[in-house]
């Protein structure tokens, strides 16, 4: 059967909007139609491009005047009601490693506790960053995220940073790293949400959640893990170790959710290739990434990871107040779901 390139189902498929039956039907048609598969790939690529452009951080926002008027009105209205007072909108982005964990937990619990909408929370995360909220910026410094942009991805996982963002540089002959960081905590989230999905009681599930489930079951997941200890150990080109008794502040992710996405390669997905790709790279003094190498994992998945990692941006590592080069590793986990 031939699927026309005029078929809007292709776009709906790329945007995860098809219902299960429709999707199965389309997939059956696509199996015998290379042209349509190619068309689908193109649509997904352009869609990813548009998404990136339309959610990129811009200066677009309400003027200070408009905002202060709004806030004035809200304050007036809420005066005497809450007692605790309105949370004042944060201004500027301040990075403060020590508070990240707590804030992260607060944030992760937002969807189930207050909104029951994981998608909202994800979006909130993106947008509050754009808005410049310090709290959200903090959250982002602890979180590495990736988002699958092709096929029908459903799950995104992210791994918050180990509690302290600092690590002590190992003394000259101390052998393996003496990093103080605990192992990464892993939070799963469904596609665009936040927080472990299984923690949401059924009763609290909302239409949003159900809609999400309808849209995107049966996809794949990609997960990025930190390996900070190895990163410290393999720190390259930094100040000579015998002089470094000062704390090294590790690089932190900088940017929005979508800046850390990794694509699940279509071919690998179709072939059912799963696995972990360990990737090493150097974060330069200006926060850009260079020298990206896949260390291990299924070769079919390398290209996608390398391509993604090259676009990542970090706050540079610091030692003694000076930015330094810093070699890091990350593990990207590709996992298909039935």
């Amino acid at each position, binding site marked *: 059967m031939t699927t026309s390139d005029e078929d809007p189902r292709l776009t709906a498929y790329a945007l995860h909007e098809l219902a299960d039956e429709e999707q199965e039907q389309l997939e059956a048609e696509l199996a015998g139609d290379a042209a349509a598969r190619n068309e689908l790939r193109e649509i997904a690529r352009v869609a990813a491009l548009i998404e990136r452009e339309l959610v990129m951080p811009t200066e677009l926002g309400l003027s200070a005047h408009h905002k202060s008027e709004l806030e004035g009105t809200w304050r007036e209205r809420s005066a005497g009601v809450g007692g605790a007072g309105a949370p004042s909108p944060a201004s500027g982005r301040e990075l403060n490693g020590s508070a990240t964990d707590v804030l992260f937990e607060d944030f992760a619990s937002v969807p189930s506790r207050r909104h029951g909408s994981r998608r909202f929370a994800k979006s909130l995360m993106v*947008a509050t960053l754009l808005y410049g909220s310090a709290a959200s910026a903090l959250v982002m410094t602890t979180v590495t995220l990736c988002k699958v942009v092709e096929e029908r991805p459903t799950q995104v996982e992210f791994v918050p940073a180990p509690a302290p963002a600092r690590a002590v540089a190992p003394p000259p002959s101390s052998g393996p790293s003496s990093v103080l960081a605990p192992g990464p905590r892993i939070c799963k989230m469904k596609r665009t949400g936040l927080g472990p999905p299984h923690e949401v009681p059924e009763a609290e599930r909302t239409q949003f959640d159900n809609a999400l489930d309808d849209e995107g079951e049966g996809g794949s997941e990609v997960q990025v893990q930190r390996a900070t200890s190895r990163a410290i150990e393999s720190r390259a080109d930094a100040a000579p170790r015998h002089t470094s008794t000062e704390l090294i502040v590790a690089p932190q992710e900088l940017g929005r959710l979508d800046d850390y996405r990794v694509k699940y390669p279509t071919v690998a997905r179709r072939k059912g290739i799963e696995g972990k790709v360990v990737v090493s790279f150097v974060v330069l003094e200006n926060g850009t990434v260079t020298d990206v190498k896949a260390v291990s994992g299924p070769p079919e998945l390398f290209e996608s990871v390398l391509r993604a990692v090259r676009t990542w941006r970090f706050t540079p590592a610091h030692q003694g107040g000076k930015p330094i080069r810093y070699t890091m590793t990350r593990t990207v986990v590709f996992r298909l779901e039935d």
Partner: protein
Amino acid sequence: MPTAAELEWIQEALARYEQPLLRFAMQWVGRAHAEDIVQDTFLALCKAQRAEIEQRLAPWLFVVCRNRARDLLREHRRLSPLDDEKHMTNPDSGPSHHAERKQSIGRVQAVIERLPVKQREVLILKFSAGMSYREIAEVTELSVDHVGVLLHFAIKGIRKHLGESAVEECASTR
């Protein structure tokens, strides 16, 4: 009258939807008017019953915003969708960083601006506001199928304008 918890909710909504709403409103009016409209939208949110709209916050906000924009247009008898500003091209961003990315962004956004009004509207709702087809249909008062068709042709149009090579280039500069 909002409680402190509601206020927090409203501020979260502002943080989430401020930019998409502005982008949405700026299809029809200039930046200054768009800001007024979005401000109005959040004042309306402040007065609304949270329980009634919480589950459909995004569509609600965009419907309000759309209605305000229409009112304003009617008021000013300005029916041409794009007026005084080159708003979609992100005039505030300086050339200082991400130069190559900005270049591709300028191109994509220029192409988006050239799309037919309805296609552009659904495109912004889909990609900037992250809405589902169903939610977009609610805002635009179109059928879900129609939304799907509009998006399909919007993406097709953008692809055609950009050309295959440009897409490649954009993808590789990311």
